[in-house]
């Protein structure tokens, strides 16, 4: 039996007819042709397939697509805006935080949820980043560059927000 679902992926609305056994990862990669999200372990342990569902990180390989009905999904393809890459992507490049690159989109999406949920006034500590990222595996870098890149992006985003004037609404 197939089911109708409706969801937003990277701001675009999609209506799809799917089988109940389709994973969110298969939907993203095979049905929507967004190949930035990777599959590695297939059992939710490595984090390469991390996407953001309604603001929270999930392992797309272990989510049933049917349970994403009505939700808002963000993938790595969402991050660059009008030709400009996200500070987290830039920090990964500047810190050489990847070699083969297979874990990178998952690392960045996971890191983004940490930065989005963290206070801006206080720097993220190395321990906080390592604890939060403990479910994302990289077999190339040894993690130090990844941790540094996330901390640096967090600082840069906080700096940028500080410089932006607060919008006031004048009636």
């Amino acid at each position, binding site marked *: *039996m197939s*089911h109708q679902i409706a969801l937003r992926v990277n701001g675009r609305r999609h209506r799809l007819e799917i089988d109940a056994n389709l994973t969110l990862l298969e939907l993203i990669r095979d049905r929507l042709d967004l190949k930035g999200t990777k599959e590695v372990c297939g*059992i939710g342990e490595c984090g390469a397939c991390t996407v953001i569902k309604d603001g929270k*990180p*999930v392992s797309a390989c*272990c989510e049933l697509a049917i349970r994403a009905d009505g939700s808002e999904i963000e993938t790595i393809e969402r991050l660059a805006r009008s030709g400009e890459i996200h500070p987290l992507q830039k920090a990964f490049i500047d810190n050489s935080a990847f070699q083969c690159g297979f874990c990178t989109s998952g690392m960045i999406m996971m890191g983004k949820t940490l930065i989005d949920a963290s206070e801006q006034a206080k720097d993220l500590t190395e321990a906080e980043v390592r604890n*939060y990222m*403990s*479910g994302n595996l990289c077999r190339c870098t040894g993690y130090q560059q990844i941790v540094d890149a996330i901390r640096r992006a967090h600082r840069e985003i906080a700096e940028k927000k500080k410089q932006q004037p607060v919008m006031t609404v004048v009636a």
Partner: protein
Amino acid sequence: MYNRFEYERAQSAEEASAKLLEGEGDGETMVIAGGTALVIMLKEKILTPKRLVDISQIADLRGVSYDDARGLSIGSMVTHLEVENSPIVARNYPSLREAFHTIGNVRVRTVGTIGGNLAYAEPQCNPPTILAALGASVHLTGPNGGRVVPAEDFIKGIFESALEPGEIIVSVTIPPPQPFSACSFFKFTQKSETDKPTSVVAVYIRSDQEKRKALEVRLVVGAVGPRTYRCSKAEDLVKRCDDLARLDRAKVAQVASEEFEVMDDLYGPAWYKKCVTDSIIRDALKATVDSLGRESA
């Protein structure tokens, strides 16, 4: 790609229970909560249900509430992360927060639920042990109405819970914190702190006003054998001690070691688990007595 199945969303625990019973006997209808374990089992074809009944969106199963008389109530579909981030939990049950903070990685905690964890009854996990130590109760609904099972009796064996055919977990309740009481949760892992445990220990002590004598003790060991073990002989030893600051922790740990089963698994051989458990029982006793306000030697 894995086996095909039908999918339905239940609007209430009663509806889910009825649907479970329709498919009873053939094991073909299963409940899906957070799905963190179930979806992997489907992918690996270890489980091959014909129909999944999704209970994760049932509003009645989703809240966390507290009152001073009745204590804490956690809906069965509350996620691990919601327990961890709840200000009510942080304020009144810090050991519960600690235990939920180290269940799997952040993505597992985002999706996995307290009820799903209990129903799955996997030995290598944190919740049954801390819940038993806190004196929690598991509230069920089913074909014969509601019933309550103490958390310490809920896990029956490896992947076996107290759930009868057609029963659904509705909530978990924990009594309000008592004066002169403390609880500690210790988990030992071989890799990161969010890895599955080699051993977990939780100790609850309520003492007299002088904090010298224990009036109520729960010493619970998990992740070492098929279920969660309450070590009542070791608890008696703690209660018989006249001054908690001088408690013979090594003796308590030794007595406790006769009260739980240990098995080899991916997280260590039995002899190793026994050594680790002995050590963290002593640590947990010390931490609990210290947080009562009696610095132990």
